[in-house]
């Protein structure tokens, strides 16, 4: 990404704060650089300030403090229609009194393009989303998925360099949503446009984005490529928000290099990777993904502490098995195993010993 190479960012938020009522900050000190051509997703629980950030970028809300720059230019005082930013709204906001063709022609008409130019661009944009035959329809005569494509085409037809999408797939059913995720991703790759995408669906964020900014409580908790976010969460909010996660509370006994020992609440001791802990005695939440937990001797590393566990439940899931265990007083410890030929099925009540690679077990903040 551009910013990783150290170039000037295409979009930059600098110390941006936002308050609607003058009492609480909805966005607290946002710093974010987005590279040209990047697909950046803002992910976070409801009310974490994602839409607010997007609206500030689009110009519909003003930042209470701080500066937003687009292509190096401060845009705090530029009105929305002069920012040249394409936008896809959650309810699509297709103009109901215009046909699809007129909807797409609208941004070109206000830019005073010639009739023939408008016609060819509208046609190209419709073909791009495979909706060439629908130019004469009204939005109300189309399905949600079709409207979604038109909204996408309309946001792209005037060739903006930056497109914002606020939960554009929120109203679609699961299958259509997954299909549209692909299409949006492919369009992004083909057009090279910068996309800022808002969602609270984490699988959407992980599959589509170059980088994901995880929002909580008006702050970015972690900004990283999807893989890092999943494999290497830097705090326990991100670890728990992204994917499935087992947590065990405890306190640090000793730290040496990239390994620490943690004493869990029931007195047992495990090894973990120190991420958010600095000294012995720190309280911590140890986090480990269900698919990284092992119970077979031949797959466990030799030099780490092991834990005793009791099988509470065995769930057959087709491609995998989920086993619910009681580990160190935690009744909701999940272990996920691939359904391989040689995989052993555990039975409820069975006692096993589990372990994992130290690198997969992260000692995070205790929050």
């Amino acid at each position, binding site marked *: 990404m551009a910013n990783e190479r150290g170039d000037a960012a295409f979009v930059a938020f600098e110390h941006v704060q936002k308050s609607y009522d003058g009492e609480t900050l909805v966005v607290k000190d946002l710093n974010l650089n987005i590279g040209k051509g990047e697909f950046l997703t803002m992910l976070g629980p409801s009310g974490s300030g994602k839409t607010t950030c997007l609206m500030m970028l*689009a*110009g*519909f809300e003003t930042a209470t403090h701080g500066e937003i720059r687009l292509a190096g230019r401060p845009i705090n005082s530029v*009105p*929305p*229609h002069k*920012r*040249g*930013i*394409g*936008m896809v*709204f959650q*309810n699509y*906001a*297709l*103009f*109901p*009194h215009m046909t699809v063709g007129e909807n797409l022609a*609208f*941004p070109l008409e*206000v*830019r005073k393009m010639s009739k023939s130019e408008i016609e060819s661009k509208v046609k190209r944009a419709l073909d791009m989303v495979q909706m060439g035959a629908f130019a004469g329809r009204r939005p109300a005569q189309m399905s949600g998925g079709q409207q979604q494509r038109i909204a996408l085409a*309309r*946001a792209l037809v*005037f060739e903006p360099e930056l497109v*914002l999408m606020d939960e554009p797939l929120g109203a679609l059913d699961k299958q259509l949503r997954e299909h549209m995720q692909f299409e949006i991703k492919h369009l992004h790759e083909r057009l090279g446009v910068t996309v800022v995408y808002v969602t609270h669906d984490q699988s959407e964020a992980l599959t589509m984005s170059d980088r994901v900014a995880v929002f909580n409580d008006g702050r970015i908790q972690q900004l990283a490529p999807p893989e890092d976010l999943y494999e290497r969460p830097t705090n326990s909010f991100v670890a728990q928000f992204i994917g499935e996660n087992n947590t065990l509370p405890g306190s640090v006994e000793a730290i040496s290099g990239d390994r620490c020992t943690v004493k869990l609440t029931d007195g047992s001791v495990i090894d973990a990777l120190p991420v958010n802990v600095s000294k012995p005695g720190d309280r911590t939440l140890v986090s480990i993904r269900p698919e990284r937990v092992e119970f077979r001797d031949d797959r466990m590393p030799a030099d780490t502490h092991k834990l005793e566990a009791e099988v509470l439940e065995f769930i057959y899931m087709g491609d995998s098995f989920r086993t619910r265990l009681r580990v160190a007083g935690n009744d909701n410890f999940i272990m996920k195993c691939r359904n391989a030929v040689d995989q052993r099925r555990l039975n409820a009540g069975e006692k096993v010993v589990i372990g994992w690679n130290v690198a997969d077990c992260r000692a995070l903040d205790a929050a």
Partner: protein
Amino acid sequence: MTDATAGKPPRGGQMLAADGTPLKVSLRRAMRAQKLRALLLISPLLLFVLLTFILPIGDMLLRSVENDIVPSTLPKTVVALQDWDPKTSELPGEPVFAGLHDDLVIAVEKKANTRLGQRLNYEYSGFSSLMRGVVRDLKSMDTSRPFMEQFIEADKKWGDPAVWRTLKTFSGEYTSGYLLNALDMQRTENGIQMKPEQERIYLKLFLRTMAMSLGITFICLLLGYPIAFLLASLPLRTSNLILILVLLPFWTSLLVRTAAWKVLLQQQGVINDILVWLGLVADNARLVMINNATGTTIAMTHILLPFMILPLFSVMKGIPPSYMRAAKSLGANDWTAFWRVYFPQSIPGVGAGAILCFILAIGYYITPELVGGTSGVFISNRIAYHISTSLNWGLAAALATLLLVVVLALYWTYDRIVGIDNVKLG
């Protein structure tokens, strides 16, 4: 539908219910009770509307063409007149005069002569006094002498064929006379013609009523649209507060409000005083703002404004703000976004408000009566005059019928141009 009990397969193109009756029949049977109950629920209203609305309107339509007073009061005369050709300049024969004598004797007994004279006076001015005169002389008439001479002796107008022509023209059960009158037309020897210039009043009044109603509607739209827009974009609490202010005038009697306008607008009134005090208007050239069209326009705009604001507001409330945002993000400035995206979506409200205001305005009576003077009165004031003062109910009914036709025609035109399904009242 493989299950045999769920429904029989169609036979001869007709679906059968489980018991073998055709599906349509059993559906109708099932719905009948429901329909009956629905009808029962609305029957009080139905009766009310029938008695207070449909019947009076029907009666009015009938009255505008009804004329049975002439044939029922003068049956013999009417029969005798059938043989007379009104195109000739000759008088009708003795049987007609004899018939008139007999009819009038009975009419005087029944005291129907005054009403008859009045009725014919609408068509031939002077008929009323002619009738009064002849009734006075009726007793002294000699049945052995020809009546023709005696009538002409009593008043030589009876020798004028025009009198008889009028009688013959209006001897039918029904007449177009009121309607023609309402259109400033009359029936002459040469067929239907416009009345002489100085006698035409109603067409002008109709035109003025429509022009002023349109003007008032337009002013209401101009004033109401921004307020409705503001209301729709404010947070709910504030907008409810302002809405109460909009509705506040409804809490005061119409008469009080109109009287208040008198106080404000008259030449020695508050507004003129302020203008003079400010030096904008000379003391001896105070503005005339009441008892004319200006007064009517101002007072009616004030009264009708809420009827414009409310439908506009309810439509605007339903337009999500994301449309304007989308338009702006696509590069439209504030005005273009409003004009190309917002305004077209508010058209149903504009239509509803405009129709409401216009229809209320075109039939308005009290306000023009109180502040309209002579140049600001509407056709409804004329209708009221004929109902309560001149007692010419036929003409009043004809004027009202024409007003109804005009409104329906406008409604139809509106439906053609904008589409009535494009109107949203709430």
